[in-house]
């Protein structure tokens, strides 16, 4: 048997080689796609190792600061290397300002950083101005070791910048540094805690040098830990709770000399609600104080400017009463019983000031002594409390220096910010409570030691209450990479038609091979071979051929992957955004996919062999008419009717529906119409087969010839129609961001420019005074959004993300802009953005995202929830209430600005700005904005450019699909060529008869050409018709996202290619006709 198998293989060498090549193509496509997917996943996993080095755990303080000493205590407690890092945002400038790169992460590191990362004497060698920069940043800045860089740094500022009265004048500093080394992945130069594969721009500097330059001591905002031992985040949190101190919670506990007790205050000015709650639980007596800076006191005509007011508990003063000190009483000539009006500012987001006033009855005038002379009641407000005199005050509220009198200066010099008045605490909270807290100081009576009080307070406080997050980035990173975009599936999807073409082609070749050997099978049956043995013989041949095909396919797979990876690292880099993808040829993946292809090939052969194996010795000839049964015809007719009705119904329903038109029903309708038309063509072929010709015309001849090999011809039509359908239906969805970009319902929201600042902007740019002050000349409107960092959930990130960045949308700012593709039922459809201001339940808030982010970035759907931790450590949920059509917000979660302020009070200033104005002035707005805010690290671009970047990913995917689809179509053309060649071989005697009957070669060529061109034309027409249905949503879309030029070009190339194949094969086939031999015998 084995000898026979090999003899047959050699005898039918050409046919078997063709089959092996067909299988090789399928192998290359399927195995190649899986290897690409596996390689991308392995690369992402490697990237996690490379970006984290040895770091396994991290404690991230967010906007707060920890002491460096905490790292030492944790290291001892955990017995694991731990290092403090001061992570700051920076803007790098070289070439005298010609090159400016925002969005740089500056890491102040200690020598212990090397131990945690897992290298020796590298970052630890940094001293003074020397820095190590990541190689990708060096490339962008075009710098080498020894070159200098200017760094504009957002200082380690313990006070949230939007805290009332705090000035941001000192928020930034500039240092000149020298590049010592360039760090690549091998030394964790691309260190990042974010689950994003795109490389960050990093600069590493000595932490002690950085602290010196910012005139602060021992601060860090990130602790990194390396441990091989199992350490859960819970265990790490417990260790942190055991080892943190008040300083790490941003608190100061100082002796209070008057009562010899203690006073708890914070460099953050206001005490967080979590701290107030904790303090309330401490059994010791305590008194809360809320001191506030007011603009003026007025009694009658007399006014005293700029003073501090503090509070007294409810048992000491009633609401609407005020106790004033003697100095103020004298200044205002006020006495008990007088009405005093107090004017003050409320400071809102973006430092929007609201002038308020409240009137009190003077209940008492007290001497400026004892408690009433305690300047420590004034909170530490940088720029204010530390100013030498009133004229040096730097605050976030306007100070009219003209109003400051000499006596005010004298008071300041003598008593600093000692409150001049005292009101009821509860009333003060009602007036001045803000998102940063409702107290500025807590005083404890004597009786407790500092240690007792500290441990009592910390005992009531969890690090997470203050937004300190404990994470295991390596594990979550590996998880995010492992669950990220499945490129294997993606490439199988993208190569679907190519793989399908390969499989159909292989199946066709197997079938043709066996058909051509029908008579061999019949002979073997006639000489007494059992069917089983014949099956074994053919299967044996098929198996060997398949194995040869797999071998050849493996070589092609290698070529395929080299090409795909070269493309991914270059022309298709849009979809991966990293230059670190490597090819992993893991034997397990290759073997699994090869096994899969082998199973498909062998199963196809078993099916075909069983179908063609002669049941008896009677010849099974193609000449028998394959007449479909009546039941089958009725079933087909019912299917046609059903599909016609369903597709029409789907289209009408979608067009009439008020909701946004969904692409899926149209794709479905298109697919149904494709199937329907194929069934119609099948019916026509059956009908032609039955029709008798009264005269022999070329048309009649073609009809008969086409109906002769109905299944074979139908498979060619199917292949082509499917190819054209998929190419147009999917390829036509290429997006053009420029189309209708000015419309408010477009993906740009009608905005001109999108800007992102490295350092938040604390001003309201719509305020004319702010504009004038800053020198803006070009008119514009701007929407300013706050951003709470998270992992990018756009299609730029291949990792799976669960907490995208949050953008706070001011109420009404985006009304009537953008287009919603989905909206949760129960929400107001007339003003979808207005729904963001609702609170759905306790700690449950609404959120909006791009539909693509919801579906692909998060793997969720509208109505699902996302869980976050608020700054106060509370678990909060965001319900996805709506999905936006492809927009500039891709990658982010949009929530109400007031909710963001409430949940993340330390988040100060706006980082995202959307400019609206006239198109002609876009450049002026851009250049003015960059000039005025250059120190904020501004990245600004037209909204169309931003949208085009997102679109380019989708477009790149579509390009890949088009390339694969085109290759599939070419393979389909090859299939058509093989069928044509095969048919010409089978019809050799027919053609010889034509020649013998005196038909010219040209006439026969034209007959054959027309016959196969009809197959091509019908396939194209069916695919084209069905695809037009499927792209209706694109045509009807307000943004009109259809671009047909490229598709038409591809189709012309494909059809031209098909026609060329048909013509050349028909001509050469007819030229080769050997009349004498063909007519001699069959």
């Amino acid at each position, binding site marked *: 048997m084995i000898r026979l198998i090999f003899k047959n293989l050699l005898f039918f060498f050409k046919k078997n080689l063709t089959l092996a090549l067909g299988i090789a193509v399928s192998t290359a496509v399927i195995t190649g796609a899986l290897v690409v997917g596996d390689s991308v996943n392995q690369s992402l996993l490697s990237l996690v190792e490379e970006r984290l080095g040895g770091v396994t755990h991290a404690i991230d303080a967010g906007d707060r600061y920890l002491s460096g000493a905490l790292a030492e205590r944790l290291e001892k407690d955990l017995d694991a290397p731990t290092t403090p890092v001061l992570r700051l945002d920076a803007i790098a400038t070289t070439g005298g300002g010609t090159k400016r790169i925002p969005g740089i992460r500056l890491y102040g590191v200690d020598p212990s950083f090397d131990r945690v990362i897992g290298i020796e004497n590298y970052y630890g060698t940094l001293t003074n101005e020397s820095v190590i920069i990541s190689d990708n940043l060096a490339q962008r800045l075009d710098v080498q070791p020894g070159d200098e860089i200017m760094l504009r740094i957002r200082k380690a500022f313990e006070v949230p910048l939007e805290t009332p009265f705090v000035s941001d004048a000192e928020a930034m500093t500039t240092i000149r540094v020298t590049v010592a080394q360039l760090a690549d992945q091998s030394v964790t130069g691309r260190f990042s805690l974010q689950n994003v594969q795109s490389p960050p721009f990093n600069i590493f500097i000595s932490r002690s040098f950085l602290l010196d330059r910012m005139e602060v001591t021992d601060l860090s905002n990130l602790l990194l830990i390396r441990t091989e031992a199992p350490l859960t985040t819970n265990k790490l949190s417990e260790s942190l709770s055991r080892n943190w101190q008040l300083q790490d919670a941003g608190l100061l506990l100082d002796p209070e000399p008057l009562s010899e007790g203690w006073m708890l205050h914070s460099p953050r000015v206001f005490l967080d609600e979590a701290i107030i709650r904790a303090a309330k639980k401490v059994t010791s007596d305590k008194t809360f104080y809320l001191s506030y800076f007011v603009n003026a006191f007025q009694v009658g005509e007399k006014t005293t400017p700029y003073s501090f007011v503090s509070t007294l508990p409810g048992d000491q003063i009633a609401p609407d009463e005020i106790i004033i000190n003697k100095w103020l009483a004298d200044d205002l000539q006020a006495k008990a019983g007088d009405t005093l009006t107090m004017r003050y500012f409320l400071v809102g987001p973006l430092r929007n000031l609201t002038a308020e006033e409240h009137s009190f009855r003077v209940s008492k005038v007290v001497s400026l002594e004892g408690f009433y002379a305690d300047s420590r009641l004034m909170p530490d407000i940088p720029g204010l409390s530390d100013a030498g005199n009133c004229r040096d005050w730097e605050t976030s509220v306007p100070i009219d220096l003209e109003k400051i009198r000499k006596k005010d200066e004298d008071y300041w010099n003598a008593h600093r910010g000692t409150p001049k008045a005292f009101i009821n605490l509860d009333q003060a909270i009602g007036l001045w409570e803000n998102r940063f807290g409702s107290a500025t100081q807590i005083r404890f009576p004597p009786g407790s030691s500092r240690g007792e009080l500290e441990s009592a307070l910390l005992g009531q406080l969890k690090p997470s209450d203050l937004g300190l997050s404990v994470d295991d980035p390596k594990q979550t990173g590996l998880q995010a990479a492992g669950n990220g975009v499945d490129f294997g599936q993606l490439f199988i999807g993208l190569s679907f038609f190519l793989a399908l073409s390969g499989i159909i082609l292989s199946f066709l070749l197997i079938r043709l091979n066996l058909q051509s050997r029908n008579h061999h099978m019949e002979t073997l049956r006639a000489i007494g071979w059992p069917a089983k043995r014949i099956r074994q013989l053919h299967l044996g041949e098929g198996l060997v051929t398949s194995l040869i095909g797999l071998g050849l396919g493996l070589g092609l797979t290698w070529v395929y992957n080299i090409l795909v990876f070269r493309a991914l690292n270059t022309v298709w880099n849009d979809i991966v955004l990293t230059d670190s993808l490597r090819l992993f040829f893991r034997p397990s993946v290759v073997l699994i996919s090869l096994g899969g292809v082998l199973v498909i090939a062998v199963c196809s052969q078993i099916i075909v062999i069983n179908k063609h194996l002669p049941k008896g010795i009677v010849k099974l*000839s*193609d*000449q*028998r*008419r394959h007449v479909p049964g009546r039941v089958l015809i009725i079933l087909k007719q019912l299917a046609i009717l059903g599909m016609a009705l369903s597709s029409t119904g789907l289209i009408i329903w979608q067009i009439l529906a008020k909701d946004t038109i969904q692409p899926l029903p149209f794709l479905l309708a298109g697919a149904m119409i494709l199937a329907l038309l194929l069934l119609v063509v099948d019916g026509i072929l059956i009908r032609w*087969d039955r029709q*008798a*010709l*009264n*005269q*022999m*015309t*070329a048309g*009649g*001849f073609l009809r*008969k*010839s086409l*109906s*002769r090999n109905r299944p074979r011809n139908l498979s060619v039509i199917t292949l082509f129609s499917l190819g054209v359908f998929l190419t147009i239906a999917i390829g036509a969805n290429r997006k053009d961001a420029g189309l209708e970009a000015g419309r408010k319902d477009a993906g740009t929201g009608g905005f001109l420019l999108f800007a992102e600042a490295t350092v938040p902007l604390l001003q309201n740019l719509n305020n004319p005074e702010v504009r004038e002050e800053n020198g803006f000349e070009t008119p514009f409107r701007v929407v300013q959004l706050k951003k709470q960092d998270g992992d990018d959930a756009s299609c730029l990130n291949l990792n799976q993300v669960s907490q995208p960045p949050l953008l706070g949308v001011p109420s009404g700012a985006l009304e009537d802009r953008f287009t919603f593709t989905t909206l949760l039922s129960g929400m107001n459809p007339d003003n979808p953005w207005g729904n963001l201001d609702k609170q759905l339940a306790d700690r449950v808030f609404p959120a909006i995202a791009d539909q693509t982010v919801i579906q692909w970035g998060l793997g969720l759907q509208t109505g699902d929830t996302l869980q976050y931790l608020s700054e106060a450590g509370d678990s909060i949920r965001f319900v996805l209430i709506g999905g936006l059509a492809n927009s500039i917000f891709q990658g982010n979660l949009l929530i109400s600005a007031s909710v963001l302020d409430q949940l993340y009070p330390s988040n100060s200033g706006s980082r995202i700005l959307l400019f609206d104005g006239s198109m002609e002035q876009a450049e002026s707005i851009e250049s003015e904005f960059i000039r005025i805010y250059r120190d904020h690290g501004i990245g600004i671009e037209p909204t169309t450019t931003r949208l085009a970047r997102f679109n380019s990913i989708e477009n790149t995917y579509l390009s890949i699909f088009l390339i694969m689809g085109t290759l599939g179509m070419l393979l389909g053309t090859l299939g058509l060529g093989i069928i044509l060649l095969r048919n010409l071989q089978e019809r050799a*005697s*027919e053609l010889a*008869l*034509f*020649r*013998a*009957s*005196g*038909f*010219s*070669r040209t*006439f026969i060529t034209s007959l054959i050409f027309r016959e196969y061109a009809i197959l091509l034309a019908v396939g194209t027409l069916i695919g084209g018709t069905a695809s037009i249905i499927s792209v209706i949503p694109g045509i009807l879309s307000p943004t009109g996202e259809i671009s047909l030029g490229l598709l038409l070009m591809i189709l012309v190339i494909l059809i031209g290619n098909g026609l060329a194949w048909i013509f050349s094969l028909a001509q050469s086939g007819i030229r080769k006709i050997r*009349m*004498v031999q063909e*007519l*001699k*015998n*069959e």
Partner: protein
Amino acid sequence: MILEINNLRKGYGVSGSAGYREILSGLDLTVRPGQSIAITGPSGSGKTTLLNLIAALDSPDEGIISYKGLTVNNLNQNELDEYRNRSIGMVFQLHHLLPQFTLLENVLLPTLPLRDQKQREVARDRAEQLLHRMGVWEVRNQRPAELSGGECQRTAVARALINNPDLLLADEPTGALDQDNATLMAQLLAEISQTDGKAVILVTHSVDLAGQMDAVYHLDRGILVADNQTK
């Protein structure tokens, strides 16, 4: 004369080499209109080769084939196509009917290049007459796979006659038929010659079939020898 063949030579292989084999060695033959002749001879003697040369399916190495005074060897490709289509009809050992067509359609196949509607209608009438005459009228709308070998071969004769040629060439037309059908075929060919006045050249192994022709030639070692016992 309708056909004159002078000094016809044909061989296979490279002339002068050891593998060269001469099939026809200076063969002469003349055929009158309405004459039927049979050519017999052992397998490989060159009978079919001779017929193929007359039908211009192959070209001779030497000699002249002249049809109604027209030298077939000198015809260009278009004239050759015209010659095959209009002047001769050919019946093969196997019927070579196309499976996708009915018998009527198969008969009409040689009229495919006709562009004139009237000519097509004439061809249609003639096809019907021929099908009647060949005794397959009743099954004209059946396909070859559904009919017997005899019916198919008679249809092939009708197809050969559809363009009303003056010369009918038949290459072992009864080779694949049973005795009854072979006899019927022989009668049919004789009748075509006698009634329609068409010249018929028949290549056969069958003595009975050859006996029904006007003349019988025996082809041996490339030379055609007249059988004296013929009519």
